[in-house]
């Protein structure tokens, strides 16, 4: 191969490498930008400290929880964030319970202070949209423990389980036939 051929091949290789590096940097910065824009405004100065991490505590009752994200505010306080994909743009009671149990598990395992509020990021299932953040007040540890005890009582047959408030829950339930 001539010198011209080698130089064209070499410069093409260098150009491909540069393009690959530029593409990787662009993808990374785009993903980081997407993360930043999806944050609630109150967490703009916060540091992302935990992602998809499992916590467990064996305190008064055993709880295991996998958190989606936890941010540390400049004051040192941790704030939990949970992503939900659904059409209705509002947090549910189950989201609050889940975040409260996560809070109990994180505090129990790490001993760090976790905020008494959290954020539910609701994203529409098929739209490439930015998730909308909803701030929710979390349950106290005592309330979580009481709920766990109540669950135990229901499963042991000591308490009758209640029907859901919304009829829509029944309409989409896989156990509808047995339940009716």
């Amino acid at each position, binding site marked *: 191969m001539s010198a011209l051929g080698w130089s064209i091949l070499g410069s093409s290789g260098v150009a491909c490498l540069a393009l690959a590096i530029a593409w990787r940097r662009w993808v990374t910065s785009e993903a980081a930008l997407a993360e930043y824009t999806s944050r609630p405004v109150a967490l703009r100065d916060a540091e992302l400290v935990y992602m998809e991490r499992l916590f467990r505590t064996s305190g008064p*009752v*055993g*709880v295991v929880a996998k958190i989606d994200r936890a941010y540390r505010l400049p004051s040192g306080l941790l704030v939990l964030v949970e992503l939900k994909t659904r059409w209705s743009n509002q947090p549910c009671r189950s989201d609050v*319970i889940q975040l409260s149990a996560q809070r109990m598990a994180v505090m129990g395992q790490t001993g760090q202070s976790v905020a008494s509020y959290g954020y539910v990021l609701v994203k529409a299932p098929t739209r490439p949209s930015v998730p909308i953040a909803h701030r929710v007040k979390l349950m106290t540890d005592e309330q979580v423990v009481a709920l*766990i005890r109540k669950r135990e009582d*229901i499963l042991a047959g000591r308490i009758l389980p209640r*029907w859901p408030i919304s009829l829509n829950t029944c309409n989409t339930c896989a156990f509808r036939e047995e339940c009716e």
Partner: protein
Amino acid sequence: MRKRSRRSDNGRIVSASDLAQMGRCERLVVFEHLHGRRRTAQQQRARERGVVEHERFYREGLATSAQAIRKGRCFIATCVFGEAWQTQVLRRFRDVALRSNAWGRRLIWCYYRVAPGICTCLRRWPVLQVPVRVVVGAIATGVRWWAGLRGGGRCRR
């Protein structure tokens, strides 16, 4: 169908997502306990969409963490000590004591402007690392016994 493995009625651990079902429907909790988890086709599709979104959410978080790690190093201590306890103590001091107030954040900002240049000098003339190691080590020892960092400091309950 398989029964649920995590139950609290016999003293075992309950997961946050299982507990969250109590907020949806208490009868559903009982049915799932007796018969295992069952989903309609619509719920299955929604779950798969949710998994995809969560993976994207995780990747976005990873990208942010990678950038934060590049920006968040304690440059000089890492340069002279590596990942030693001194570095961890100083990093913790930065996060707990300095980041909590405006003057501290300004100080961090100034430090990040100056420190990479100092590290370049330290790497070029390794003999300078000895006095710097002594000074930074003394600061780290002092900070280690500072009340604000012992047991997690004021950010802990």
